[in-house]
Structure formats: structure tokens, C-alpha cells
């Protein structure tokens, strides 16, 4: 069966693990992509949670600054933001290094990618989490306040667990966006899955084979993530009455 496939589509053998196959390269790219997506998602969640609380409970200046941040980041294409932040961050770090008397450094693609995509994710996560917090029944928070809970403990023990079930669908979407946005880092020359695929494809001329294989890998990530998020959502909704 496999033999027949190989003879029918000889380019399939290029997907083999060891050279002359490019399988190992694709897998390395996939690992890089997942690593960056996980990092950016974590950064985005932290920024998003802080941003949501800032937007809801912050002072007027905090709120306006956060509004500017979410509006600008959501209005400018990720590709442009990646370029601006990539150049600006490397430039600033290097100027700081030189000013303090150190040699210039090359910022690793992983760190830059995580930072840049994290800032982008943070803007979207802020809006998702803000909406989810607003959907927490006011009575729960009033009860917590009536019991004399300090604000931080209310946030940790009441608001966050209750808002999680509202936020999970939006956060699942964000994770899928994060995995797909890693492909944009191919533009700044970072060897994630899409760029590895393109290199493999252009050196073997088997464009369709490699791009379809990479597409299957991305699709696999999406489908597995959807399953995992369904499990997480069921866990987050434990104890809730089944809606009719």
C-alpha cells in the first residue's frame, strides 16, 4: 500500500525523516511554531488578565491608555506590528546594551517572536477577558464584598473561576489565531513550520507535496486543540446547571 503510494507520487518519499527526506526539518519547524505559540499565548494571557482588570477597575489614565493599546494593535496588521516591534525591540535592546558598555547582541528569533506575538495576543485577550468578567453575576461579587473579602482574593477566588467558563470560547479562538500567526514570523526569517516548508519546497521543487503536508500539520494542531479546549470548557463549567 505504502509502496504503491510512493510509486504513484514519488515526491512523497521527500517527506521521509532522514535526508534526502525533509521530515526532520518540518518537525523541527513544527516544534518551533508550537513553542512560540505557547509562549505568545502565555504572555498574551498575562497581559490580557492585567489589561482586563485595568480596563474595569483602573484609574481614568490607565483605562484610556489601555483603550489606545487595544485599538491600535487590533487595527494594524500583525505583519506590520511584527516588523515594527521586531526592529524597534532589537534596536532598543542594542542601544541599551551599548549605553551600558556591553557588546551588541543578536536577539533570538524565539524571544522576539514570543514578545511580538504576545503583545498582539494581549490586546485581543484583554477584550475577551473583559467581556467574560462583565458577564460574572454581580450578586456573586457583592456577596464576596459583603463577606469582607479583600479585592485580590475576590479576583482570585470568585471573579477568575467564574469568568473562565465565559472566556474559554474566546480564548480557544485566540489560541488558534496564535498558532496560525506564528506563520507570519516566516517573513522576518524565523525558521518555523511555514518557512521550513518553503525552503524544503523550493530546494526540491515539490511545492504541492510540502505545502499540503504543512497544511495537514497545522490542521492537526487545530483539531487537537479544539478537542483539548472542549475538555477544558467542560471542566470550567463543572457545577453549572446545564442550560436548556
Amino acid at each position: 500500500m505504502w509502496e504503491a503510494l510512493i510509486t504513484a507520487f514519488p515526491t512523497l518519499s521527500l517527506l521521509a525523516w532522514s535526508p534526502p527526506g525533509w521530515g526532520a526539518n518540518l518537525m523541527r519547524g513544527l516544534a518551533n511554531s508550537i513553542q512560540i505559540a505557547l509562549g505568545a499565548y502565555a504572555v498574551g494571557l498575562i497581559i490580557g488578565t492585567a489589561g482586563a482588570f485595568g480596563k474595569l477597575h483602573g484609574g481614568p489614565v490607565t483605562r484610556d491608555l489601555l483603550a489606545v493599546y487595544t485599538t491600535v494593535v487590533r487595527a494594524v496588521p500583525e505583519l506590520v506590528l511584527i516588523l515594527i516591534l521586531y526592529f524597534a525591540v532589537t534596536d532598543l535592546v542594542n542601544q541599551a546594551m551599548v549605553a551600558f558598555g556591553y557588546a551588541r547582541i543578536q536577539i533570538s528569533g524565539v524571544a522576539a517572536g514570543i514578545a511580538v506575538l504576545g503583545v498582539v495576543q494581549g490586546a485581543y485577550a484583554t477584550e475577551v477577558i473583559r467581556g467574560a468578567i462583565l458577564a460574572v453575576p454581580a450578586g456573586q461579587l457583592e456577596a464576596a464584598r459583603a463577606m469582607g473579602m479583600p479585592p485580590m482574593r475576590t479576583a482570585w477566588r470568585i471573579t477568575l473561576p467564574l469568568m473562565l467558563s465565559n472566556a474559554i470560547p474566546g480564548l480557544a479562538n485566540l489560541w488558534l489565531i496564535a498558532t496560525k500567526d506564528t506563520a507570519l514570523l516566516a517573513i522576518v526569517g524565523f525558521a518555523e513550520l511555514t518557512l521550513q516548508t518553503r525552503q524544503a519546497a523550493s530546494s526540491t521543487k515539490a511545492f504541492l507535496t510540502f505545502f499540503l503536508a504543512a497544511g495537514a500539520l497545522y490542521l492537526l494542531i487545530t483539531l487537537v486543540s479544539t478537542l483539548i479546549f472542549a475538555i477544558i470548557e467542560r471542566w470550567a463549567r463543572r457545577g453549572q446547571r446545564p442550560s436548556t
Partner: protein
Amino acid sequence: MTNFWHPHRIVMAAIAIAIILACALLLRWDWLPKYLPLIGQGIWRTLWLLAVTATLGFLIAIPLGLAQAAGPWYLAAPARIFCTVIRGTPLLLQLWLLYYGLGSLFPQFPAIRESDLWPYLRQAWPYAVVALTLSFAGYEGEVMRGAFKGVPGGQLEAARAMGMPRTTILRRIWLPLAIQRALPTLGGETVLQLKATPLVATITVVDIYAVASRVRQDTFIVYEPLLLLAVVYMVITGLIVLAFRWLENRIPSRVA
């Protein structure tokens, strides 16, 4: 408007104006006049791509959504698979698959090379249009599925009870109500589509992003073209948001 100008907002606006002035005076803008025609063409091409792909994509999305919401399984299943595949893979990959993959496949067939379509298939922009259209259709198919399902059943039953033919129900009742429900989401998705257009620069279509990259490569000026790019995209986003707000306000609604 009286509520808007709090003291802190006046200070922030002053800081913003100071930053803009500093950008205008301290950064280099002498390249601007030379590249102005190119920039105009780039903006026009971006807008054109956005308008064409969003319109075509939406026209494909209607049957996709309808098939998933009410179609028999042999129509619903392919529609769902199409939406899942499009939404599950990066647009950049789809674009490169079409341009490099199909683009390298087509010349092998003499029938295609001798057809009237060949002059178009040799250029990059048809691939950009197809990729962006399919992507928009995939995302909007999902939106329209929800919108079609969300139309109250009583409306459709009333139309059926009046003896309306099925196509008339779709044209006069179901589709308008579904679009009305989906309009806020469609506005957001159109902004996302705008933000997807710069990807076509990677397959040599010269949109505004490609123009900015060229300025960067020609003059070694890094930040100024990127700032201009960000401003252009923010202005277009603002226009899209305003246009959809205008559309939403035109729809009479009884629910406040």
C-alpha cells in the same frame, strides 16, 4: 462631548500631539514626495483587493452557511470540511500553496498554457484574489451558519404559511434577517480581512505594504515607512468601522 474632555484627556492629547510633531519634525520624510505615486497605487491596490475578495468571499459564504445550517448532509459535510480546513491552516500557507504549488503545476499542462486564461495565470494577483476570497468565504461561512440558524423560526413559518416559494423566502426573509444578525461580526471580519491583505506582498503583488518594504530597501530608512503603513491601515480600519456602523444604523430594529 462635554464628558470627553476630562483634564487627564487634555494632557494625554497634548502628549499625543507632541509625539506626532516629534515624529513629523525629527524623523526623515524627504523620501515621501518621490514615492507618493507608488504609495497611491499601493493604497488603491490594497483597497481593491479588500473590496473584491470580501464581496466574492461573502457571496460564496452564503451557500456555505446555508448548506451547514439547513442543507442535507451531502452538502453540509463538504461545507463544514471546507470551513474547517480554511480556518485551521494559516493564510500565508494557503497563499503559497496556490501560488508556488499550483503555479508550478500549471505550466506542465500544454492545454492550460495555450488557453486564454494563461496570461492571467502567469501573474501573481489572481492567486492572491483566489486565496483571500477562499479564506474570507471559509470564515464567513461559519458566521453565516450561525446567523441563518439564529433567525427566529416563526418568521420562516409565517412566510411558509403565506405560501411563499422557497427561493423567495430565502431572498426576502431568511437572508436579510441573517445578514442583519451577522452585521456586527461581518464588520470585525472585514477588518481582519484588511489585515490579511499585506500577505500578498510575499507573492510579489505590489500593495501598500510592498511599497513600504521597497522604500525600506531602497533608502535604508526603517521606521518611517512602517509608521506610515500603520497610519494608513488605521485610517482604513476606521473607515470600515464607520461604514458598518452606518449600515447597522440603517437597519430598523425594534429592540433598543
